[in-house]
């Protein structure tokens, strides 16, 4: 894409001349880094790994109460919390049936772990749940089933 009149001569290189090169070099460096990093981390912006896998997953998620009971999160929850209302993105709203993991199972497990933690600490009216647990069954491109257990940190509201 060269050609056309140029603004800078070789003799005099303005601040703009250097600034343009700095911006372009920075963007190229960031972009290449993101593409490479996407092979080692989940949901990397600018990684451009489209339709990376056909993994599937399903999960049973329970509230572990202070008296040791394990209650399905679909059952009534103190404070009227509904999992599917507060956790929406990336197929996490309905974890109970087998369905595709949008950006691969690693990303889904990462999001689900974050969701357990977020919900555990954004339900102040719940004084009986000490933690949330998810038992995840997943298939990596048809291979499996594999199993993973994800656990939120303990809630201070219930421990008190």
């Amino acid at each position, binding site marked *: *894409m*060269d*050609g*056309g*009149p*140029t*603004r*800078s001569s070789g003799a005099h290189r303005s601040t703009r*001349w250097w600034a*343009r*090169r700095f*911006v*372009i070099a920075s*963007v*190229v460096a960031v*972009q290449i880094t993101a*593409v490479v990093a*996407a*092979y080692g981390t989940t*949901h990397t*912006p*600018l*990684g*451009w*790994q*489209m*339709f*990376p*896998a*056909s993994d*599937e997953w399903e999960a049973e998620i329970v509230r572990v109460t202070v008296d040791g009971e394990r209650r399905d999160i679909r059952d009534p929850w103190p404070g009227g919390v509904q999992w599917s*209302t*507060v*956790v*929406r*993105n*990336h197929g*996490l709203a309905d974890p109970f049936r087998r*369905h*595709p993991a949008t*950006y691969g199972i690693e990303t889904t497990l990462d*999001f689900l772990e*974050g*969701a357990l933690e*977020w*919900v555990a600490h954004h339900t102040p009216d719940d004084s009986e749940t000490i933690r949330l647990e998810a038992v995840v069954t997943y298939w990596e*491109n*048809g291979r499996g089933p594999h199993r993973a257990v994800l656990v939120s940190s303990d809630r201070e509201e219930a421990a008190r």
Partner: protein
Amino acid sequence: MIAAAARRVAALSTSIDGEGDIRAVELLRMAAGPLVILHLAPFLALALDGVAYSDRFTEPYLSVYPAVGPALYFAILWVGVAAAAFLSLGFATRVAAATTAAVVGYNLLLSRTHFSNNRFFLLVLLVGLALLPVGRRWSIDAARRRRRGLPAADSRTGLWPLLLMRFEVATVYLASGTSKLIDADWWGGTVTRLRVVQWQDAVADGGVPGWLLDIAKSPEFHSWFAKAAVLTELAIGLGLVLRRTRLGAVWLAVPFHVSIELAASVQVFSYAALAALVIWVTPEAGDRTVVIRGSTPVARLVSRSVRRLDWTGRFALTTPAGKGPLVSLVDRNGVETHGAAAVRRIASRLPLTFWVAAPLNLPPARALWDRVTARVFGPASGRPTADAAAPEPPAR
């Protein structure tokens, strides 16, 4: 070898400082507004119900990222909608472009749960538009200048932001294709086959016959289909970068994105990727001349088509008196074509007819077109002028 590398670096350096006419990119600007509004629609729907991002599971990229309260968040989203509308209309274009990019970027980076490749692709395009003066030709800004009696703003500008946009868009195809190429499950067809299996009920409900679904689920089919998909993606990426193959790559990208849109839910990605193809138009306006002689209905039709459909500014149009072929085209390298051949080449450079007309320039179709349409447009002929011996214009 070192000398060749040095020449390439010098050529790249010259490209960075080059100037050109970017009126074609204004088409992307016009498309960007509706795409942004479509992209923001789910967030706006929640906002209308009083639900902000912070009312649901969120996961910030950075703990220091400036989070805002619901009221301000809703206001930011609506500012984004207004800015997107202004961007498409070309009203206060540069401010609108920067605001749109800022709102979309802010919202995307608020939470990792907002992540999707197609949303970041849209953001990349918006940042590119914000860096380019894309409201100088077809915009309310340009109309206001005309009404005030001011001369039209020059569509020529520094091309380095366009260079960056091209780099980013080509990287999307190349990075995506490469990640599939080195993934044994992708290359072998497992990933695409399982996608079909996962959605087979919906596909069957959509009226696809059983026998076709059986083929679409078979490992043998996918062992070939997956390779074709990966190689197509890589061919588009590589083809766009190389000037000689660019037209073919743009042509291939059209069915590629249409098929993705039909087969998968990718939000605004397909539309954004199709609109973004205009960034590969050579940033030089009117460097081909269409010559139309006479006032026959056919001459008027060709003249009107060029005037109305040349949205990327490829042609300068002249209508000289005197005898000669009904329609002629003088290409940017000086090559002249006449009659059916000229019409074929003109149609292959108009956005609306490009996809159908471009293959007509390939040998078997070319001969057939020239023979069939010779009676309408005149016999196809062409000869290089003296200028054609000159070197090719610079790669753009």
